[in-house]
């Protein structure tokens, strides 16, 4: 039986504090739709980054298109700064297989050649299928078989981690 799920709201300031010492003038942040964008929207103002927040949807770069087709409403990718030479913080909510991050990196290189990319996640649930690790991780969470860890956002903007059936 896994323990209680961590409080997403409590993880945010700790994650911001861990990032604080590593911000340079070349740092910029990109959040992955949808959960990663929520996390990035909260972290971004805490870090005083010069560039506005970038948002990315990786629908056109997924590796399961042949099986799943195009999911219903791809969001728009908005990167309001030059990617070239940038030290990027790539933000997602839950790190699992690593496939989303792989797709995101492919998409990023179609915008330019960043100097570096560091992965920032609110929660790491293990189960990697690719050699990808987070440089900054809010919490490690054990997820029972057949379940999925999801980030939810309430109407008042509060973030919370929840388990649901993987279905």
């Amino acid at each position, binding site marked *: 039986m896994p323990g209680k799920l961590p409080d997403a709201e409590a993880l945010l300031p700790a994650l911001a504090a861990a990032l604080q010492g590593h911000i340079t003038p070349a740092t910029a942040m990109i959040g992955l739709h949808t959960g990663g964008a929520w996390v990035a929207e909260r972290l971004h103002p805490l870090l005083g980054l010069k560039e506005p927040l970038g948002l990315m*949807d990786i*629908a*056109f*770069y997924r590796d399961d*298109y*042949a099986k*799943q*087709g*195009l999911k*219903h*409403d*791809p*969001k*728009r*990718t*908005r990167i309001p700064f030059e990617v070239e030479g940038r030290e990027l913080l790539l933000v997602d909510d839950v790190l699992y297989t690593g496939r989303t991050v792989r797709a995101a990196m*492919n*998409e990023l290189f*179609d*915008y*330019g050649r960043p100097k570096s990319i560091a992965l920032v996640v609110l929660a790491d649930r293990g189960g990697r299928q690719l050699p990808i690790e987070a440089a900054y991780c809010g919490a490690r969470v054990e997820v029972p078989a057949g379940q999925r860890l999801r980030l939810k956002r309430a109407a008042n903007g509060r973030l919370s981690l929840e388990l649901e059936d993987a279905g």
Partner: protein
Amino acid sequence: MPANPQLNANGELQHLLSIEGLPREILTQILDTAQPFAEVTEREVKKVPLLRGKSVFNLFFEASTRTRTTFEIAAKRLSADVINLNIAVSSQSKGESLLDTVANLSAMQADVFVVRHASSGAPYLIARNVKPHEHVINAGDGRHAHPTQGLLDLYTIRHYKKDFARLTVAIVGDVLHSRVARSLIHGLTTLGAPEVRVIGPQTLIPTGVEALGVRVFQDMRAGLKGCDVVVMLRLQNERMNGPLLPSAQEFFKNYGLTADKLALAKPDAIVMHPGPMNRGVEIDSSVADGPHSVILPQVTFGIAVRMAVMAIVAGN
């Protein structure tokens, strides 16, 4: 009720043959999906890997450089391999049947067929005879339909006017021979545009067109009053001096869009044209190049819309 030949068992888009008969949700899905693709085409790398390894065959049984080119660009921006076949001058002239041609191409591992044919219904015939993993997109069949043109018109209207719920749209000119007009009328009524008008001489308006939910005007000035969107249709060269019209000059006088006629529409009206334009026949140069014209953005949006259609059907 017979199953819709465009949808698979899950109600998803399998082939795009006509806007007619497509539910509102699918039209909206295509328009919504086209939006992020429009942004891809503004990037440095105008390509996404979605259809990598898939083959798109452009089957043009009727010549159309422009439509073929936009499909080719769209497929290439999805990373598909594109094979252009100008069949008007190859197999058909050797007497091969339509379905034999398609069976041969299918044996070459096609994934998507983009079909332009002078006969209405040809893409339906092909769609009924392809394998389950193959998809057909109608790029214009006879007088019947030109769904991707209709969709790019809808995309353009939504881009500038945001919502269909209050719009008055006028479609002007040779409605009788226009597959563009037919596709657009079906799309506009499905998406809830409250007033669609068709304007043209009686000889170029199909009888019974009111059944599609449009209002008919023979007086262009009356028809343009209060319009938000004016869609001009191309007058084919061969009709200009044919039995249906006195002359191109006469047509321009009555149905050519000039600045003074356009002034009767709303001040923020947009002017569209599917191209290629006949300046001085259906549209005056000052309007075609004027501030209301969105004719060139239509071309750009057309690529994003065709990317969306191919990405959706090839994934279903």
